């Protein structure tokens, strides 16, 4: 299992991670090594096995919809690195 630099860059773009050339080089090697080790999973016969994404026997958990006091506008932006008039300021999303 060999991951090319192109594949590593494509994954990084999906995950929105800016990587240095040195990181691309290193992750290509390490991820290839790790995924290679994981390949022995393929030897397990799972033809009759239903996948599980949770161990719990629970499903469709319902509760009463009871209104609770919301965050105040001050609290809502308390941790924002950049806010203005109780709004989060972001970079332009659309081109001008």
């Amino acid at each position, binding site marked *: 299992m060999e991951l090319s630099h192109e594949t590593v860059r494509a994954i990084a773009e999906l995950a929105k991670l*800016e990587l240095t050339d040195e990181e691309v080089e290193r992750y290509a090697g390490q*991820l290839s*090594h790790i995924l290679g080790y*994981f390949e022995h*999973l393929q030897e397990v016969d799972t033809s009759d096995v239903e996948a599980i994404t949770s161990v*719990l026997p629970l499903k469709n958990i319902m509760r009463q919809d009871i209104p609770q006091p919301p965050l105040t506008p001050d609290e809502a932006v308390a941790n924002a690195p950049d806010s203005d008039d109780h709004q989060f300021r972001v970079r332009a999303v659309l081109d001008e």
Partner: protein
Amino acid sequence: MTRLVELTISEALNKLDAGEITSVELTQAHLDQINTLDHTIKAFITVTPELALEQARQADELRAQGIKKPLLGIPLAIKDVLSTKGVETTCASKILKGYVPLFDATCVARLYEAGMVMLGKLNMDEFAMGSSTENSAFFNTLNPWDLERVPGGSSGGSGAAVAALMCMGALGTDTGGSIRLPGSFCGITALKPSYGRVSRYGLIAYGSSLDCAGPMTRTVEDAARLLQVMAGHDPLDSTSMPDPVPDYLAALTGDIRGLKIGIPKEYFVEGMQPEVESAVRVAIDKLQELGAQIVEISLPHTEYSLPVYYLVATSEASANLARFDGIRYGSPVQGEDMWDTYRKTRGQGFGDEVKRRIMLGTYALSAGYYDAFYGKATQVRALIKRDFEQAFQTVDLIVAPTSPSVAFKLGENVADPLQMYLADVLTIAVNLGGVCGISVPCGFGMGNMPIGLQLIGPALGEDVLLRAAHAYQTATEWHKSLPPLVQV
């Protein structure tokens, strides 16, 4: 006269109730211990002395009024992955530096309600990803038993702080072994409850189908006291189990006669340190001496638990960590446009291991690879869960080592991520199966390094698990040993 920091939680509660000591004295003693030792050990990211002493004063006042609470005036510390209202919570990551939660995690809120005094927030591997605490973005935590060795991870700050008597107990979290491994490496008692037994609300998510908060203490009795408070259904976490919470202290009868305990042959792996194997075998003999019936069992899919875990956990992580974009909280790095700002913020804000795991998870979930990786892993996970269900039809508990080795040296596994992942080889399946596990000290190897005995119980079987671990501690002295550094 025993030093205040050497008291167990049970002993301290007795002395507090008898009026022999105050919570202010007890809290000050632990703050003094932090002042003396933590510049060396480096277990705490944040210490909150004023808050702690104020809470201690209030606890003393309530006790004077005759008010009873299960942990009234007991100083504890919290892993920095659990949200604490008004106290910075970083996950040991640069990307969350400065983040101050607006709410408490449910398990933290319940400890406050029970009377906890909060001493501060503990170091960890960034976003709980690691086995040595060397992935903290801030600094390494050292093992109090040997300052050249790691405390384990990811709850390494919790393990080191409890072992060095800087708090009476701590909360850790365990996604693949992150409570039990540092428990083993630091020579303390460390409980991972069953998935869903303790609310995850306010636990900053890594692998949502695996994450679990639990107590790290010096005795099983103390762990039972903390779990009693933390456990139970939470309307804010739809994956918390509605089943009633048993009386865990009442379960500590000291009697394990007739209990059937299985030894899984797959857990005595090649490459295990001989001293670890022999200490665990002696501990198993002790359980037998106490009246347990020991049988050999098989958990046939054990060898696949490592790849299954690293595919499931990293896939979940790649989705969970998408929320860190430097806009609503955290530290942004400005780029040319919005997308460039995201890339730079995340590329520079996350550490090496976190990026590696996000990449691994993104790859496992991506088109063309989903079936072969994530899909396959969730199928084999069903087989691992079934292994436990079948085993618990014939035995009450399972016994094994917590780790194949004692604590390794700082830097020893840093260059090879796969080698580091192998540290979790004996703890990971428990999380995949959703069952509960505890690590208790059972000897020493490599000179003076603690060895951990792991007991595993069925889902929601914490009462039986604690009963057996407590019976073992009642019959042995290992958990009473203190690191030379903290002895007077």
